[in-house]
């Protein structure tokens, strides 16, 4: 339900109240900020230090000592570059699909359904409903629906829409499908919040000036809903790039669909190769920050951050 984060920053308060300088502010801020410094910033520093660690001289599994082994980065990139590329590729495709899926839906709820407030709130509840049930169970349900013995797959094979020996689970298709499904609400909600505020008089003005419906949509509606598009794509792209549930073998993934999240998990929790897991995490975060920075700058919605 991260949408709240972006939807409210997209709409800054109209008239900010007068602000006072005071020690009260410090007292209010200190505990929370201290908490984030201790449990968010310090762990990031830990992660960087860990990513540079070297094996101990006896080479015990899971034992490392502090060092400055930047070669760790070279090693993980050499070993895992397909996973890194795949993660961003899957995340980008899933984001585009989620946007294509969500925009018409958000438009209907936010603009067309304005006349019927009850329908509007009912539809909104249905959009956020997936949040109320376990992410893992939803994904497992799709695994069953897409599995070889399922009604869907056997029917598709019966009508020859699918080759007799084809599989859906364990493929790039099912992982991207799962990512798209799971992050659709994160896309729909910010889109809805900007479209819901869209002033219909702009559209009427476009019409009065003899613009075609499509032209008005392209030159008025899309630009006005840009904050929602940017917020929605970020809220989908960032978690999708780091996700490792959809691509897990027990869920929708297979041997050739492992993403960077799966590799980080395996290295950290199974192989106990902490430096490799940490280096991959830092790479993931850096690439995301660069992509997000460039994207936000190019789309001209810096005030969002």
């Amino acid at each position, binding site marked *: 339900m991260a949408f*709240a*984060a972006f939807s409210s920053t997209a709409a*800054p*308060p109209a008239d*900010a*109240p007068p602000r*006072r*300088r005071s020690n009260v*502010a*410090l007292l209010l*801020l200190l505990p*929370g*900020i201290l*908490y*984030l*410094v201790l*449990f*968010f910033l*310090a762990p990031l520093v*830990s*992660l960087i*230090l860990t990513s540079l660690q070297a094996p101990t001289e006896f080479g015990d599994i899971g034992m490392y000592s502090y060092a400055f082994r930047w070669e760790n980065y070279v090693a993980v990139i050499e070993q895992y570059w397909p996973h890194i590329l795949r993660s961003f590729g899957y995340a980008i495709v899933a984001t585009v699909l989620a946007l294509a*899926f969500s925009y*018409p839906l958000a438009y209907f709820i936010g603009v*067309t359904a304005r006349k019927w407030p*009850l329908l509007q*709130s009912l539809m909104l509840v249905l959009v956020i*409903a*997936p949040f*109320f*049930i*376990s*992410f*893992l*169970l*939803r994904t497992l*349900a799709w695994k*069953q*629906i897409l599995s070889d013995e399922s009604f869907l797959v056997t029917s598709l094979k019966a009508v020859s829409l699918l080759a007799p020996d084809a599989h859906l689970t364990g493929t790039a298709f099912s992982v991207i499908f799962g990512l798209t*499904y799971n992050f*659709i609400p994160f896309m729909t909600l910010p889109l809805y919040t900007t479209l819901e505020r869209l002033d219909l008089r702009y559209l*009427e003005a476009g*019409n009065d000036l003899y613009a075609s*419906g499509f032209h*008005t949509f392209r030159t008025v509606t899309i630009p006005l809903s840009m904050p929602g598009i940017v917020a929605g794509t970020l809220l989908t792209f*960032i978690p999708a790039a*780091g*996700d*490792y549930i959809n691509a*897990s073998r*027990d869920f929708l993934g297979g041997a050739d669909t492992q993403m960077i*999240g799966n590799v980080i*998990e395996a290295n*950290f929790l199974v192989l106990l190769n902490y430096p490799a897991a*940490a280096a991959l*995490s830092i790479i*993931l*975060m850096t690439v*995301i920050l660069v992509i997000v920075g460039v994207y936000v700058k190019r789309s001209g919605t810096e005030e969002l*951050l």
Partner: protein
Amino acid sequence: MTRFSLGKWLLPVYSALALIFLMIPIVYTFVFSFNDSLKSNITWRGFTFDKWLNVCAVQNGAVCEAFGNSLIIGVVATVIATTLGTMIAIALVRYRFRFRAGTSLLLFLPMATPEVVLGAGLAAQFLSLGVPKDMLTIILAHTMFCISFVVVTVKARVAGLDPALEEAGRDLYGSPAQVFARITFPLLLPGILAAALLSFALSFDDFIITNFNSGAVTTFPKYIYISASRGIPAEANVIASAVFILALVIVVTAQVSAAARAKRQARQG
């Protein structure tokens, strides 16, 4: 009113189908909670109410224990995150201070960091400090990622609060504590409750960060992850379905009462 609508019927029909699509795995989970089989999600073996009546019977109550852990973690993390986040939200809207931009960035970054990085970072930190992973480390982790979401949710409410109301309280010789308890807090309460619900939902459903920081403790999502390879017991579907229905009732009630309040106010005004 003309606008880009792709035909009069296309958009409503598409939206209805899209919502049905979103509901598919939810309906699936609910239906299979009635499956008369030890493993719920594989094949349909007939209808039974048993799993709903004896949720904790399977595996000596492992599902229920995991569920209980998730509840405890969710409640404690929510209380701490909501308290800290509300304080920050008030400070951000009401006061001018140095490092304002830095504070905003510090609050934004956890939301822009993939969970796997947050999870691995904390795990690396606990590892280097030699902190054993248990309930406490999960709670510390959950509180961390919930704070930012609380701040943004409550901030919107503080920004919509008329400072004149608090001024009036002070003019009437209310002490700062009285003004807060009688005016500020009640007016912020709907926002604080929304933030708490969001925070609880985020904590309850989190798997990735939990997996890195839970050690031997099993939460509800972790239980599902572990069971995924050998089949989920139908009891897990029961718990998930019950939580879903409860959450739906809460949200629908809130929506309906908000709509009724708006109607009443419109009539009075």
